[in-house]
C-alpha cells in the first residue's frame, strides 16, 4: 500500500527536489566543473602544504599543497563515470540472467543460480579485489570488477520478481494471445521488474561510489596522482589530526551524493508505479 506522500514546496515532494538537485549538481560538476575549478588539481605547492580553508585555497590544500576544491571537482567526474558505467553493466548483466533464470526455470535456473550464489557468497569488495588483480589498478579495471561483483545482486532481485510475476495470469494471457516467449519477457515481464530494478540500481550507485572509495583507499583504485573521492580519503588518513578537513570534505561529498541518489531513486520508483495517481 502506498503511503500518502506529503506535498512540500508547492505540491512537489521533498525527496524529488532534493534528489534532483543533488544528482543534477553532481552531474553538472562532473561535466563542466573542471573548467571552473580554481586551480589545477595536480599542481603541487609545497608552501601551501595542509593549508586551512580560506584565502587562495577555498577548502584548504592537501599534503602536497594541491587545491582540495579542484581535486573534489575532478574526483566527481571519476566517481560519476565509474558509478554510472558500473551500474549499467551490473544491471544489464543482472537483468538478462535474472529474467532468463526466473522465466525459464528448470535447469537454466539451477545452473545460473549455482554460479550466481557462489559469487554472492563472496563479499562484493573481496570479489572486486580478485578481479582487479586480473585487470590491474585502473579506472576501467574498477568498472569491470565492480560491475561483475554487483551483477549477482541484480540477478537475485530480478529473478525473484520474475518468479512472482510468472504466477500472474497476465503472463499466461500473453501466451494465449500467441506471443513468443521472448516477446512476453520483453513486453510484460521486464516492464514490471522496473520498480525493484530501479531501487537496486540507485542503491548500487551508492555502493559503487563507496566501493570505489574503498578500493582507492586500499591503493587499488584510480592510480595517483589522479584524484577520486576515495583516494583523497585514504591519502588524508595520516593527517587526520593536523588537517581534519581533508577527511571531512570528500566524506561529505560521498554522503550527500548517496543521500541524493537514494532520494531520487525513491522518487522515480513512485513516479513509475502505475498505481500512483499522478498529480497534474
Amino acid at each position, binding site marked *: 500500500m502506498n503511503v500518502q506522500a506529503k506535498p512540500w514546496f508547492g505540491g512537489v515532494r521533498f525527496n524529488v527536489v532534493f534528489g534532483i538537485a543533488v544528482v543534477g549538481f553532481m552531474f553538472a560538476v562532473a561535466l563542466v566543473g573542471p573548467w571552473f575549478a580554481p586551480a589545477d588539481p595536480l599542481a603541487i605547492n609545497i608552501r601551501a602544504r595542509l593549508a586551512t580553508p580560506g584565502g587562495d585555497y577555498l577548502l584548504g590544500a592537501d599534503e602536497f599543497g594541491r587545491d582540495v576544491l579542484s581535486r573534489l571537482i575532478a574526483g566527481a567526474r571519476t566517481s560519476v563515470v565509474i558509478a554510472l558505467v558500473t551500474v549499467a553493466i551490473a544491471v544489464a548483466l543482472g537483468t538478462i540472467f535474472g529474467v532468463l533464470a526466473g522465466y525459464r526455470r528448470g535447469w537454466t535456473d539451477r545452473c545460473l543460480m549455482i554460479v550466481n550464489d557462489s559469487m554472492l557468497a563472496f563479499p562484493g569488495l573481496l570479489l572486486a579485489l580478485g578481479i582487479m588483480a586480473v585487470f590491474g589498478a585502473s579506472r576501467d579495471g574498477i568498472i569491470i570488477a565492480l560491475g561483475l561483483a554487483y551483477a549477482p545482486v541484480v540477478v537475485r532481485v530480478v529473478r525473484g520478481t520474475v518468479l512472482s510475476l510468472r504466477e500472474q495470469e497476465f503472463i499466461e494471457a500473453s*501466451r494465449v*494471445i*500467441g*506471443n513468443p516467449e521472448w516477446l512476453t519477457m520483453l513486453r510484460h515481464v521486464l516492464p514490471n521488474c522496473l520498480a525493484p530494478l530501479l531501487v537496486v540500481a540507485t542503491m548500487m550507485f551508492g555502493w559503487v561510489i563507496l566501493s570505489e572509495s574503498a578500493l582507492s583507499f586500499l591503493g587499488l583504485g584510480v592510480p595517483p596522482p589522479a584524484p577520486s573521492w576515495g583516494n583523497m580519503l585514504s591519502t588524508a588518513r595520516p593527517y587526520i589530526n593536523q588537517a581534519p578537513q581533508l577527511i571531512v570534505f570528500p566524506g561529505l561529498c560521498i554522503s550527500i551524493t548517496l543521500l541524493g541518489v537514494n532520494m531520487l531513486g525513491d522518487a522515480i520508483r513512485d513516479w513509475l508505479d502505475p*498505481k500512483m495517481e499522478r498529480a497534474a
Partner: protein
Amino acid sequence: MSGPALEVEGLDVMVGGTGMRVVKNLSFSIARGGALALVGESGSGKTMAARSILRLLPPGLRASSEAVRFEGRDIANAADAEMRRLRGAQIGMVFQEPMVSLNPSMSIGGQMGEGLRLHKSLSAGEIRDMSLAMLERVRIPDPGGCLAAYPHEFSGGMRQRIMLASVMLMRPALLIADEPTTALDTLVSREVLDLMMELTEENGTAVLLISHDLGMVARYMQDLLVMKDGEAVEKGSAAEVLRAPSHGYTQRLVDALPRRSHGGERGVPAKPIIEVEGLRVAYPGRRRLLRSLPAKEVLHGVDLRVGEGETLALVGGSGSGKTTLGRALVGLTRPLDGLMRFRGEPLDWRAPQPGMRKDIQFIFQDPYSSLDPRQNVGSIIAEPLKRDRASTRRGRRERTAEILELVGLPADFMPRLPHQLSGGQRQRVAIARALVREPKFLVADEPVSALDMTVQAQILKLIRELQARFGFACLFVSHDLGAVEQVADRVAVMKEGRIVEEGTRDDIFDRPQQEYTRALLDAAMLIDRRFGDRTAAQ
C-alpha cells in the same frame, strides 16, 4: 432475557480528514439468538459497518454513532480494555479469507485454545477436551490429529470450519460473519453455512452475516438489510424483501439472482469444433529435499465434444479438474496422454498450426491479475492484433475502438490503466482482448466468480450477446450453476477428474441422474426453488 443482542443507532463511518462517509446513519438491531444479514455489493460499506462494532476499522477510518448497545450495555464509548474483553469472548468474528485468517505458524490446537486461555481460567486438559469436542462437532475427521496440525494442511472449507469451531468455542452471544463463504465453492459453502446455523442455534448466538449474495442470505437469514453506498435502502424479513422489493436497487439485486428459466434452448449443432478423447493430465509431484513425490493425476481420461457455436458448461466442485481441462485445451497445461482435435485436425500445442492461437482464446477467472498493470486498456486489447504482421497502427486502433464499444465500454477508456477500472470493467477488457481477433472457440474459466452479483448478470448477458454476434463456441468452466443456467446449451458435470454426467441444460437441471449433480444443484440456491410463486405469478 429481554432486549436485543445488538442495537446500533445512527452509525457513521468516515474516511480520515476528507469527511467522506462510507457508512451513513445506519441503524439496526438483532434479537438475542436472532439473525440479520447486511447485504450489498462491494463498496457498499457493509464490512466497515460490521467492523466498526468491534472497533476493528482499518487505519484512517473513524466511526461515530448515537449508540451501539450490546446486550443493553453501551459499547460505543467503552474503554479499549473493555472492548478487548468483549472481542472473542462475547462477540466472535469469522473472516472472509480462510486462507489468511489462520496463523500459518501456529498449530490448530494452539489457535483454538488461544481465546479460552485469554478469557477463561481453564486447565490445559480442559481446553484440549473442549477443542476436541468442538472439532468433532464441526465434523472434522480425526480431531486429535487436527489439533497438532497446521493450517496449510487443510482445504479452504476445512479451515473455515476450524475458524468457526474456534470462534464458537467461546459461546459468544453474537457472531459476526464477514462473507464467510465467498472464497469457497458452492458445495462447500453450503456445508459451512449449514454448520454455522446449527452451531449458533444450539448456543443461542445471534448472527450478523455480511454478504453480497442475496440468494444465499434468503436461504439462511430471517431478516435482512440492503445497503447501497453506505446507506440502508431496504429492511425487512428475507422472504418479504425477495417477494416484493420496494427499492429500485433491491429490485435489481433480486433480478440478478440466478433462477431457473425455461425455453430458449438452441438446437444441438451436428458439427463438433473441439473433440477430446481420453485426455489425461498430471501435475508433477512436489519436490522434497531429496526426491520428488509421485506426480498427481488430475484428469483420468476425459472425453468431451463441443459443437460449433454452442456453449458447453463444465461444472464441478473445486479440485474436480475442470479448470485443468480448460487450460489443457488452450495449451496452458500440457496433457500426459489423450487426443485433442480442433475442427477435425489434431491439436498439439507444442507445435501449433498457424492460426490456432487466433482461433482459440481464453478468459481468465481473476480480472485483477489477468491484465498487465502497466499496459493501458487500448494496448491490452490491441496486443493480439499485433500478432498479425500485416496490421497497421491505424487499423488496430479502429478495431480496438470497435470491440471496446461492443463490450460496452466508452472509447475514452483506452488510455486508462487497469487499476483505474472496476472488476466488471476489467473483465470486459479481458473479454475484448479475447474476442478482438474473432476466435472460433473460447474457454471461459470462471469468468464471473470474482464479481458482484449484478455485475455477474451483466457480464453473462454480454457473453451471450457477443456469442450471438460472433458465433464462437464456448467452454464455460464454472462451479456456479446459477451462472451456468444463464449461458449453457449443454452441461457436463465433473467430479474427481472424470465427467460423471453430460446432457442438455434442461436435462441436467430438471432431470439430474447423479447424486453429485443433485447436490450441486441443491447448493446452487436457484431462487425459484423456494420462491417459485414469484416467477409463476409474473
